[in-house]
């Protein structure tokens, strides 16, 4: 199969994005047209890129080509291999959903916001992501990386009239720049070894690095990518930035932008950097565990719907890192097969999380769009006015909680299996860490389930808690289509996993020289098996079927019962308490109370209750209750740092105190010192 079709469609897609960017910028005076250009071009570009990705994956063999750039120093060289194809596929799936969704979503911008500029940034983001995934040269990679960050900054700060957005945007871009700094140093290290900025040349160069420099390179890259991925403790920008962006953008940010960090780690650690130090994998694993558990714990305390979702991104990145860390460990320990399974677990979870997190953010966007609030405490009962959104959100919630038979379950299952296998594969006491990590993964999953029970129930079920949600309306059709597409994807990837898995074969072969999927699929291609050492099996299709078969008779039973003995709607019994009203419903805060108490060590919750009464404190007329948790990292880590920098700088300012004599004295002293330095032979 010739390389032409892939390259052609890929370039065409890129061209479409670029054209879209310019066109929507050009049409910023005509909102309606700008809207159509923005979404239409994005849809077209995404479709093309998706096609390119599919072709590329089918083709298998990596394609490299290099375009001379206008800058004599560097050439733009791309490489379209399995990994790039996979991430581009993920991007395309999301981009399609988001651009369809945006048709409806952007309508409300008309006349109020500059859709043209929005479209420009939107396309720029998509373009840069595509480039990041396909760049085969550090320079191009960094350009794509930073341009993406800048575009994302523009989009995060898009509602820049609100202080919140401005601050969040700045926090985001500053952290992003810090990670670029790390990457620059890392790449410089490799380039110095190889003498060229091409990724292809790194592999050989990294082999010659001294162990110290190798560790340094690993640390630098890990820092850089970890910041981008929002791994704890570098996460603080994430829950700040993702919620304030327009929801369709939040979906992309949480869905794919943070995954560039994962892509980078995979690309550099498994491909370019050749061998990583033996402790590296362990570090990644542990960081992953911490991120997963803390991420979900913080998510539980949120009652801002979008912030809650943002924290879940941190959690899922943690889960992905568990798989990746395991893969690194196995690779160093010389178990390519296990490494393959672990890598597949990580990659598959990346894809899955991208899909359902995007779906959930779009759902949240729809809710925000119709109620105008992000505060769950004011929502409720939305399942009646917006049934479709509610259904999509529910599917997303089940998927992200890792419950069978949807896709989230499969990737978590694979992660479990590879962790368990690790116990047998690695010697020494470190092996204990694998099952422990597994149990932490279990904790994470269960907490996530709890969190999404809260998120879904408080948002969509029971009685409306605020006027906005009382007169909410279903989202426009295009938005629903966008969500529906992802809902389908969740179900398809869950039930049809065994048909999808072969996609990963090329990746594992390229990165680990090992095809794995053959070991993973048994039972007439319907059953997923953990392959080698631990022979666990699972079949999501089977589970779904079984559930269906078992529920049907029960349904019949109930139906007959209902036909004979009737069923009627009545008021809530509520232990006989009359007149249920929204005020005495369970709230999000109340729901998470138990966990807040249990993990109070971590949260350090503060609460403040003021009761207003006239006769006796036991019969208060009104009670004002407020409770907040302090976010450890901001208070203990970042605030002091910033404090220090500012204070130091202010102290430095006395240097420039305006006295010319002081200024001359600086020069004089320097001169004398240098003269002394100069005379000593």
């Amino acid at each position: 199969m010739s390389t032409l079709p892939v390259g052609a469609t890929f370039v065409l897609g890129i061209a479409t994005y670029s054209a879209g960017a310019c066109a929507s910028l050009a049409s910023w005076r005509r909102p309606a047209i700008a809207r159509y250009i923005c979404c239409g071009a994005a849809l077209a570009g995404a479709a093309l890129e998706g096609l390119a990705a599919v072709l590329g994956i089918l083709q298998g063999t990596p394609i490299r080509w290099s375009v001379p750039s206008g800058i004599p120093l560097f050439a733009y060289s791309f490489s379209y291999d399995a990994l790039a194809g996979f991430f581009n596929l993920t991007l395309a799936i999301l981009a399609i959903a988001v651009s369809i969704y945006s048709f409806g979503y952007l309508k409300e911008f008309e006349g109020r916001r500059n859709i043209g500029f929005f479209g420009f940034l939107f396309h720029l983001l998509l373009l840069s992501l595509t480039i990041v995934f396909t760049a085969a040269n550090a320079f191009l990679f960094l350009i794509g990386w930073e341009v993406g960050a800048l575009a994302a900054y523009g989009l995060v700060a898009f509602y820049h009239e609100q202080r919140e957005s401005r601050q969040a945007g700045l926090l985001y871009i500053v952290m992003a720049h810090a990670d670029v700094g790390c990457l620059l140093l890392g790449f410089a290290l490799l380039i110095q070894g190889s003498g060229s900025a091409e990724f292809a040349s790194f592999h050989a160069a990294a082999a010659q690095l001294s162990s110290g420099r190798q560790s340094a390179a690993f640390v630098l890259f890990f820092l850089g990518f970890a910041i981008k991925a929002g791994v704890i403790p570098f996460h603080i920008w994430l829950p700040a930035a993702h919620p304030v962006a327009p929801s369709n953008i939040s979906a992309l940010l949480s869905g794919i932008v943070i995954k560039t960090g994962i892509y980078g780690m995979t690309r550099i650690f498994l491909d370019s950097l050749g061998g990583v130090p033996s402790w590296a994998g362990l570090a990644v694993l542990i960081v992953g565990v911490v991120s997963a558990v803390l991420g979900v714990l913080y998510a539980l305390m949120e009652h801002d719907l979008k912030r809650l979702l943002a924290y879940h991104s941190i959690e899922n990145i943690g889960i992905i890192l568990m798989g990746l860390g395991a893969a690194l460990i196995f690779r160093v320990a010389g178990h390519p097969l296990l490494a393959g399974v672990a890598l597949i677990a990580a990659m598959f979870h990346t894809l899955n999380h991208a899909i359902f997190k995007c779906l959930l953010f779009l759902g949240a966007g729809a809710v925000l769009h119709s109620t105008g609030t992000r505060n769950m405490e004011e929502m409720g009962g939305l399942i009646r006015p917006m049934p479709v959104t509610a259904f999509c959100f529910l599917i997303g919630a089940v998927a992200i909680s890792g419950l069978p038979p949807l896709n989230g379950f499969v990737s978590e299952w694979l992660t479990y299996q590879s962790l368990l296998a690790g116990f047998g594969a690695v010697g020494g006491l470190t092996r204990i860490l694998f099952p422990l990590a597994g149990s932490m993964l279990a904790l994470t999953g269960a907490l996530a389930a709890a969190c999404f029970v809260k998120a879904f129930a408080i948002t969509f079920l029971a009685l409306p808690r605020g006027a906005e949600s009382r007169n909410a309306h279903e989202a426009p059709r295009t938005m629903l289509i966008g969500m529906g597409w992802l809902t389908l994807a969740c179900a398809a990837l869950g039930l049809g996993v065994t048909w999808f898995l072969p996609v990963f074969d090329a990746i594992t072969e390229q990165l680990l020289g090992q095809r794995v999927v053959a070991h993973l699929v048994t039972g007439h291609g319907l059953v997923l098996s953990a392959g080698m050492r631990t022979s666990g099996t699972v079949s999501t299709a089977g589970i779904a079927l079984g559930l269906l078969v078992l529920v049907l008779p029960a349904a019949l039973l109930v139906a007959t019962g209902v036909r004979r003995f009737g069923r009627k709607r009545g008021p809530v019994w509520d232990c006989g308490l009359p007149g249920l009203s929204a005020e005495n419903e369970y709230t999000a805060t109340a729901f998470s109370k138990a966990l807040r108490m249990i993990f109070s060590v971590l949260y350090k919750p503060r609460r403040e209750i003021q009761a207003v009464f006239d006769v006796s404190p036991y019969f208060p007329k009104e009670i004002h209750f407020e409770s907040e948790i302090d976010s450890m990292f901001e208070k203990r880590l970042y605030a002091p740092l910033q404090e220090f920098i500012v204070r130091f700088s202010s102290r430095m300012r006395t240097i420039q105190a305006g006295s010319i004599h002081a200024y001359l004295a600086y020069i004089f002293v320097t001169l004398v010192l240098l003269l002394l330095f100069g005379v000593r032979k």
Partner: protein
Amino acid sequence: MPFVPNPELGNRIITLMAALVLVLQIAAVGQRWIVSSIRIFAVQSFLLGAIAAVIAYFNHASHIYIAALLTVFLKAGLLPRLLERLVERVGIRREIEPLINVPLSILIAGGLTLLGYVVAESFHHPEETSARAALGHNTLAVAIALFLIGFFAMVNRRKALTQVLGLLSLENGLFLAAISLTYGMPLVVEIGIFFDVLVAVMVLGILVFRIGETFDSMDVSKLRKLRE
């Protein structure tokens, strides 16, 4: 019968004058009256001119005569006149207390002279025993000392005018170095430099004048509006 120029003798004379110049410089550090420090500067410049002439005479470097003349004309004649006029215009005659008190300043000046010799030491080439080398070694020390002390004066003095004087005496150091080390720079350069010095002094003069009339004090340590 013609007088036979003898380099040895020349060097003696030059070294002597250089020493004198240095003494004047140190004296200027202790000086309180603006006018008299201007005069000191004038004498110093005159001596430099003389040194230049001597070098020119003993080494048949005729183009240095021009430098000598220029020096005497500009630095010993024109500039001091201008400055004194300025002093009258602004009407401030006495230097206020410098940042570092006089005895200490003089001590520091001595230290700087020492530094000058240390530095000059580093290019002494025992193997090369020509007259020029020896001369260079001595006068360079003086030149560096002049430079440093002039600089120190700028750091130390508060009046705008005395800072200008410091700058000028510092340039005298350069001139000494130039003529004694290399028997002068190429002529074009010399002229360019003199021209620049002239313009510089004018510019500074204008500034001093403006400052004098805007702030009705020439204490530049009071200029501290612009700061962080």
